[in-house]
């Protein structure tokens, strides 16, 4: 087995806050959102985290949330991160962004902005994101391009907007975007809660991929388009964040360190906090980061599988959510004895798309969070 010291957390995802003006029903944040921001890490604490992670070899830094622009100290954090040698990515809804702020963040050392759209036009963006923000997103996209800051547009795909791929790509192209990500949402947190109304049918998926390929053919080289299909339709799982504890480290707003954004769903795991421990100890020595590292933890059919190094058994959270045991194979794998569960879920998604379905989505906001918490107890 590879020794733990050879793993480098090249990616640090800093979830600065859970506060967010957008209410995406597919958000991967936990359902139980803190009602208050008083436990968020302070500026000094974040700087300490960034310094410790940089020492471990972290070099790509993502500021996300929630909406990272909610933090008044964002620019200060970018300055500090830049001086530490990070390449800094801002993952944002663009709400709270202004032309002046873009200039300031660029001057502070920001490398790249990713702006997400919830719908491909004003009305659906409002309906799916719960904010009337489409015009602002368009303005900010233009402004980022004008100020020559590398930009990616992110369009999270699901059952309710899968048919909008062409409209979105056309818009992105007309704005002059260089890079577009069409990422099917993943089923964690709020996304899992809303899965029934988010998982596309096979037909929708095939259509969206065809439209994307046609667009690529027609506009060769102008814009890079990256399409991410939902893994429920694959017959082999995806690695967990490039391998549990191998590359990624997420620090959540309250200082808990996670191997991936979703890991909090796994019961029986303790999440060490940067307020109590050094990141080096957390990364190298904690039970959490060692629990599913490499292949030693595997059970059958993964344990003796010739492909085990390729996908490392897939996603631990998905294994837990769909089979009840995080040490099982990710049931997306057709070799998993629980694969039927995935087939049952995708089978239910083969109904045709209906616009009214949108009313069934539970939006991510403190009110719904409270309601869900009450239902659970």
């Amino acid at each position, binding site marked *: 087995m590879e020794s733990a010291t050879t793993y*480098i957390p090249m990616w640090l995802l800093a979830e600065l806050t859970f506060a967010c003006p957008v209410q995406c029903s597919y958000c991967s944040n936990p359902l139980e959102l803190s009602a208050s921001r008083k436990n968020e890490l302070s500026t000094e604490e974040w700087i300490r985290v960034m310094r410790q992670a940089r020492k471990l070899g972290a070099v*790509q830094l993502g500021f996300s949330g929630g909406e990272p622009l909610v933090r008044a100290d964002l620019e200060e954090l970018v300055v500090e991160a830049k001086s530490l040698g990070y390449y800094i*990515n801002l993952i944002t809804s663009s709400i709270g962004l202004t032309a002046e702020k873009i200039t300031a963040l660029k001057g502070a050392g920001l*490398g*790249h902005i990713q702006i997400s759209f919830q719908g491909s036009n004003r009305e659906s963006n409002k309906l799916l994101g719960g904010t009337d923000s489409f015009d602002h997103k368009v303005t900010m996209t233009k402004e980022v391009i004008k100020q020559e800051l590398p930009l990616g547009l992110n369009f999270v795909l699901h059952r309710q907007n899968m048919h909008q791929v062409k409209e979105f790509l056309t818009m992105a192209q007309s704005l002059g975007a260089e890079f577009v990500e069409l990422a099917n949402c993943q089923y964690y947190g709020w996304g899992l809660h809303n899965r029934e109304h988010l998982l596309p049918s096979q037909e929708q998926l095939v259509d969206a991929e065809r439209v994307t390929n046609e667009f690529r053919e027609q506009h060769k080289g102008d814009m890079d388009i990256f399409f991410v299909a939902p893994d429920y339709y694959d017959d082999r799982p995806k690695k967990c964040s490039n391998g549990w504890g191998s590359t990624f480290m997420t620090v959540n707003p309250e200082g808990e360190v996670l191997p991936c954004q979703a890991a909090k769903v796994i019961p029986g795991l303790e999440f060490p906090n940067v307020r109590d421990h050094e990141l080096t100890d957390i990364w190298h020595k904690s039970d959490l980061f060692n629990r599913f590292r490499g292949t030693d933890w595997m059970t059958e059919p993964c344990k003796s599988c010739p492909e085990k190094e390729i996908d490392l058994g897939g996603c631990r959270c998905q294994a837990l959510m769909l089979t009840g045991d995080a040490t099982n194979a990710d049931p997306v794998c057709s070799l998993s004895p629980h694969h039927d569960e995935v087939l049952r879920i995708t089978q239910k998604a083969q109904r045709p798309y209906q616009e009214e379905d949108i009313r069934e989505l539970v939006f991510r906001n403190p009110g719904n969070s409270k309601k869900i918490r009450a239902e659970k107890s």
Partner: protein
Amino acid sequence: MSEFSLETVSFKLNPRYQFQWEEAQQCHVLLYPEGLVKLSDSATAILQLCQQPTTTSRLLDELEKAFPGAEGLEDDVKEFLADAQKQVWIVEVRD
């Protein structure tokens, strides 16, 4: 966008890439949105000289001085530059 003649035009490292030494990986890297490329020693030697505007012939002169007698240097450098141009690691410098 990346179409310029490596024979006649000045070029430099694309300012959109961050080029630096990484202690943890013991190599130079090029950083870009959400990713990185680890660079070999020879790629590093070339890109280091591209931090200021340069030309293919000036680069070759400098590298021949730094690595006298290196075999096949010209071909290797030209091959690397062609690839770097395709990846947009280097961009044209307009006067």
